[in-house]
């Protein structure tokens, strides 16, 4: 445990010193992974389905605020959908705007959750995001998880039904009726509804339990959050007649709990004070201060050197005493 704490302190120290660069690199990788996934699954527009473009946009992401990255990724996805079908792009664009209306007003600080939710769905551990946001965010964070979930299910539907969607656009006679088909397909998924409700319940339940003034509230919150997650999915599956692997839900929840425990170890109750570069002045001086946080747990810097241990010498010492 001490080794883990020392590792955490070293990591904190490293992060606080190189925060600016680390955040830029992380943003770059978040943008790169998201764009590569979009290109791999929806690469309908050949102009942007290009490694160089992805690299340039990812580099751009490393300097942009997270909310702009979300907009950029949404625009990237929308361009691919537009190349497939104008009608589909119109509906997806409408849904994106409605989601942004909710997201930007209520939880604009959870941009990472919006991007990570679809990625976690692909990794089959979608429960990580609501469980982590339950103790790191606010009840309004359920909006950002919901937006990520809807985006994933819409884009997944387009990927799976690309041929039918493309044929709708070519057939002018059925163009009017195509919207019904598209809206039903994109937004009519009971599975999507089940996940949105479950995640909202998990985020709110975990937040409320975590806020209780009792010992280990966040651990209790996580445990109950996992149970609530499984229960709501089970009840929802029977109520909405959704076919889901119960074993998959249990394993996914268990893996998510483990990941959230690791996240909690590194994030919860840690003073992530960082290097501050600030400037100010008073009547006499201009100050250019660089404040570097102190480490609270010293990393052991042990260097054991054998000096030729001699038992006779010890006996001699005892004799003199």
């Amino acid at each position, binding site marked *: 445990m001490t080794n883990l704490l020392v590792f955490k302190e070293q990591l904190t120290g490293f992060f606080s010193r190189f925060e600016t660069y680390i955040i830029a690199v992380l943003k770059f990788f978040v943008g790169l992974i998201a764009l590569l996934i979009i290109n791999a699954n929806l690469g309908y527009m050949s102009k942007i389905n290009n490694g160089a473009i992805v690299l340039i946009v990812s580099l751009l992401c490393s300097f942009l605020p997270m909310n702009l990255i979300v907009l950029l990724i949404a625009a990237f996805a929308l361009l691919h959908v537009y190349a497939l079908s104008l009608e589909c792009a*119109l509906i997806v664009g409408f849904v994106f705007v409605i989601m942004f209306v909710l997201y*930007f007003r209520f939880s604009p600080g959870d941009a990472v959750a919006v991007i990570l939710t679809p990625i976690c769905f692909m990794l089959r551990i979608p429960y990580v995001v609501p469980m982590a946001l339950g103790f790191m965010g606010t009840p309004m964070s359920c909006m950002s998880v919901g937006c990520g979930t809807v985006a994933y299910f819409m884009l997944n539907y387009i990927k799976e039904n690309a041929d039918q969607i493309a044929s709708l656009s070519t057939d002018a006679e059925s163009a009017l009726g195509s919207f019904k088909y598209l809206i039903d397909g994109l937004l009519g998924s009971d599975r999507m509804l089940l996940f949105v409700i479950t995640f909202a319940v998990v985020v709110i339940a975990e937040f409320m339990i975590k806020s209780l003034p009792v010992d280990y509230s966040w651990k209790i919150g996580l445990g109950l959050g996992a149970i609530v997650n499984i229960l709501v999915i089970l009840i929802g599956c029977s109520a909405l007649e959704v076919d889901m692997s119960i074993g998959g839900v249990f394993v996914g929840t268990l893996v998510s709990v483990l990941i959230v425990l690791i996240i909690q170890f590194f994030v919860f109750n840690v003073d992530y004070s960082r290097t501050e570069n600030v400037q*100010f002045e008073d009547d006499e001086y201009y100050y250019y201060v660089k404040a570097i946080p102190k480490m609270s747990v010293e990393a052991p810097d042990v260097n054991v050197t054998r000096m030729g241990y001699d038992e006779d010498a010890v006996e001699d010492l005892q004799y003199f005493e």
Partner: protein
Amino acid sequence: MLNEDRIELMTKMAAYESRQGRRDISVHEFFRGDYISFQVLKSALYCTVGFALGVAMYILYDLEGFLTDFYKMDVVEFAKGIATKYAVVLVIYLLASYFVYAYRYSRAKKHMKKYVSQLNELDTMYDWE
């Protein structure tokens, strides 16, 4: 001569001003009622845009039927139905906005209280010199 305690306090304050403080100070410039009203008004605009897109999708959903029945339908009844739904959505959205922004105002106020006490402490330090 440099006063280390004062520099430490000023560094903490400057760090706060450059991050969270920027937002808190802009919130604190308003009275509570003004801030919440302004944000609720902004939310009403956002909600109207979202609802308009929702209505557009509703019409697109059955565009063929809508165009066929357009001349037969009672436009006033149709508009009344839309207006009722808009009112319900708007009330829910604005209530949520009210609670969220009231909470944000009280949080900013709490941070600013600490910041003002630090300012007073700094002022006292200058007086002592």
